[in-house]
């Protein structure tokens, strides 16, 4: 059994209530931080822990915190990004739904470290029921004195609010999130200035993922060095992985970074192997936007070493033969899956979620969807594969925010590793999908 730090208590009955959470050692980090540590000491511990942003980009959290501008007399904010909308990712929902106090505890401790008097949890509209759970937990925390004025008799006061978004993927981008939180249209801002300098209402702001903030709790409790002992190299600590697709046991798992991918897919502790005794075809390792990899490349790197669940090992070989850990949305596909159809679904999503600010993403995502629809209808030509490749290369890296890349990478990877599937449809002028799902539901494309 791997060590669990975030969801080790998830099976305890009524862990969502403050009473039970406190009985299992909850809010110890707030006590420890407020009574025995200075804000800089906490930032140092986070730096030592090597914690990296769990939202997808993997930027070192301690470094991000140390970039926060601290002009005198200006408010600072901590914003929790709970707008988890990446297809295939549902780890934050599980954490917030089951142990809401873990997030709130992390928010208080992190806010103390950053000197933020106010913090916001921006949660996506579809998670309205999770927002209610969080709000109930915040109410409990206020009543018990963990939030509000002079927490634990110190001069640190803190308010935490939950803001429900409208359910737009783009508001998961940090500057789009801030715009939305300010009550505007959720269009990402042009950087610089970065939120650490001018974020929410022009004030210095740190935006962190739910899991990142929750991970601050064990770091403060056990110390950064103890946290850094888990994992390999620069991938330290534990990570929540949302496993889905054609596996026997889909769900949210907490893993120690560094376990082999093969173990994660086939061991009974985690995914439990491929459903119905089928063979595995491909894996999307970190949410829909990261490149898809075929079986031989996801289990072993191009050099023949076993691939591990770490930021570095999954990215080994660049995008030619590697992928990314991303947000931890682990989607496994069996041998019956049509990669083209899967890509169509992803591209349709990105087309729908593009904010429409900059032209390559606004026009390009729709164009790619239209071409993929031709593949679905069996009317595509061989030249359409080249065209698709060209369009994605013209979107990637030319947009304001990373949504352009998120839309382009899956297309590029599908063509790179599964070009024969596209060509087969183009040559036969017929799209045949044999997946179990498709036998039940007619193609609606």
């Amino acid at each position: 059994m791997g060590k669990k730090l975030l969801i080790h208590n998830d099976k305890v009955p009524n862990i969502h209530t403050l009473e039970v959470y406190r009985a299992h050692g909850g809010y110890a980090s707030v006590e420890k931080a407020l009574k025995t540590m200075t804000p800089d000491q906490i930032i140092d511990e986070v730096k030592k822990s090597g914690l990296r942003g769990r939202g997808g980009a993997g930027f070192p959290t301690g470094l991000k915190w140390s970039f926060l501008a601290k002009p005198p007399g200006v408010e600072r904010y901590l914003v929790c990004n709970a707008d988890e909308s990446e297809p295939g990712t549902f780890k934050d929902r599980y954490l917030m739904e089951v142990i809401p106090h873990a997030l709130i505890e992390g928010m208080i401790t992190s806010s103390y470290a950053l000197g933020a008097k106010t913090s916001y949890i921006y949660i996506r509209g579809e998670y309205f029921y999770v927002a209610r759970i969080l709000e109930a937990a915040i109410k409990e925390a206020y009543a018990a004195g963990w939030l509000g004025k002079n927490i634990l008799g110190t001069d640190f006061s803190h308010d935490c609010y939950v803001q429900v978004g409208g359910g737009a993927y783009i508001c998961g981008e940090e500057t789009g999130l801030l715009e939305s939180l300010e009550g505007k249209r959720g269009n990402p801002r042009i950087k610089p200035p970065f939120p650490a300098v001018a974020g929410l209402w022009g004030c210095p702001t740190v935006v962190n993922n739910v899991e990142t903030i929750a991970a601050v709790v064990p770091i403060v409790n056990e110390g950064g060095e103890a946290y850094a002992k888990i994992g390999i190299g620069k991938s330290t600590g534990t990570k929540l992985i949302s496993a889905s697709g054609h596996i026997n046991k889909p769900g949210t798992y907490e893993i120690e970074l560094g376990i082999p991918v093969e173990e994660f897919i086939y061991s009974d502790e985690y995914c439990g192997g491929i459903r119905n005794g089928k063979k595995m075809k491909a894996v999307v390792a970190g949410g829909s936007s990261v490149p898809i990899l075929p079986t031989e490349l996801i289990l072993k790197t191009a050099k023949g070493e076993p691939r591990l669940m770490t930021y570095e090992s999954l990215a080994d070989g660049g995008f030619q033969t590697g992928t990314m850990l991303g947000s931890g949305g682990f989607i496994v596909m069996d041998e019956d899956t049509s990669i083209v159809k899967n890509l169509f679904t992803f591209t349709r999503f990105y087309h729908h979620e593009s904010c429409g600010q900059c032209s390559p993403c606004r026009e390009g995502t729709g164009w790619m969807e239209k071409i993929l629809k031709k593949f679905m209808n069996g009317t595509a030509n061989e030249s359409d594969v080249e065209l698709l490749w060209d369009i994605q290369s013209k979107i990637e890296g030319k947009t304001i925010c990373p949504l352009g890349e998120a839309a382009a990478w899956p297309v590029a990877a599908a063509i790179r590793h599964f070009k024969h599937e596209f060509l087969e449809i183009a040559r036969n002028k017929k799209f045949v999908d044999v997946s179990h799902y498709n036998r039940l539901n007619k193609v609606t494309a």
Partner: protein
Amino acid sequence: MKVTIDGIEIDVPKGTTILQAARMIGPKVAPPAMCYYTNLKTSGGYCRTCIVKVTKGSTANPTPMPKPVASCRTEVMEGMEVQVYTNPEIVEARKGVVEFLLINHPLDCPVCDQAGECKLQDLGYENGSAKTRFEFKRREYEMIDIGDKIKLHMTRCILCYRCVKVADQITNTRLHGVVHRGDASEISTYIAQVINNDFSGNVIDVCPVGALTDKTFRFKQRVWFSKPVDAHRKCDKCCGKTRVWLKGEEVVRVTARKDEWDEVHEFICNSCRYDHKKKSDWVIEGPSHIARASVISQNHYEHLNELKVEAMKHQKALGFMDIDKRP
């Protein structure tokens, strides 16, 4: 601050953007810009036609920037080196952006009122390709009247957000914005409300395409058949300095004055724009400066004397007759 753009060095003040620095050098290195507007704060960064490659960040930190950057929103650093037209990757990427802008734009220039003064036409001509690879139905919208003077045709819009910024920044009330998302985005006046203020007409001038047009001028005259002259009148609302477009003795329309980058610096009021359509209302200063490359410069004799002198030199050299001294 010294900055090198396409191999040409220039000294610019701090806070200048790459685009402005390139414009200071001249049109040869200035990247095209569809959404950036000098006078409108926070404009730019959307269309991506002005993307450039920064091959050297600064003297202090010479690492190149990993991705192409929008030159209109990136400030120069000491010792920065930028490639606009000399980098084949960027030229190709810009071609891609032009293609994206055009895939949902109706190519009905022959019946579009903006033809001749359309920035997208110029952009496509200079940076695009001759054929489209888009084979699907283009996006279409119904035409909308914004008040009795402005026509909005969203089908032609490239979502540069310039008109939104005008409505936001030079007028007091904001009734104008973007609704919906992605390629379904639409410029709209909220709940079909009319833009009803004295400076609303300026959205027509900032629109780079034929999405916002002047209803009092629509289809009356092809722009290249009219003669633009700079004129002024005493106005208590605005500066009163305008460009009056003449057809013989008739004033067909009044617009604000545009500079060589097609940008307005002094916005004009609706009274000047719509209510003074007589030649006697205006004090005419002389022909407006129109770039030689523009189709409007046909029939336009701004440089007539210079041209004549230039032509004479060659003719004399060749031993031809002097046209002004014909018997």
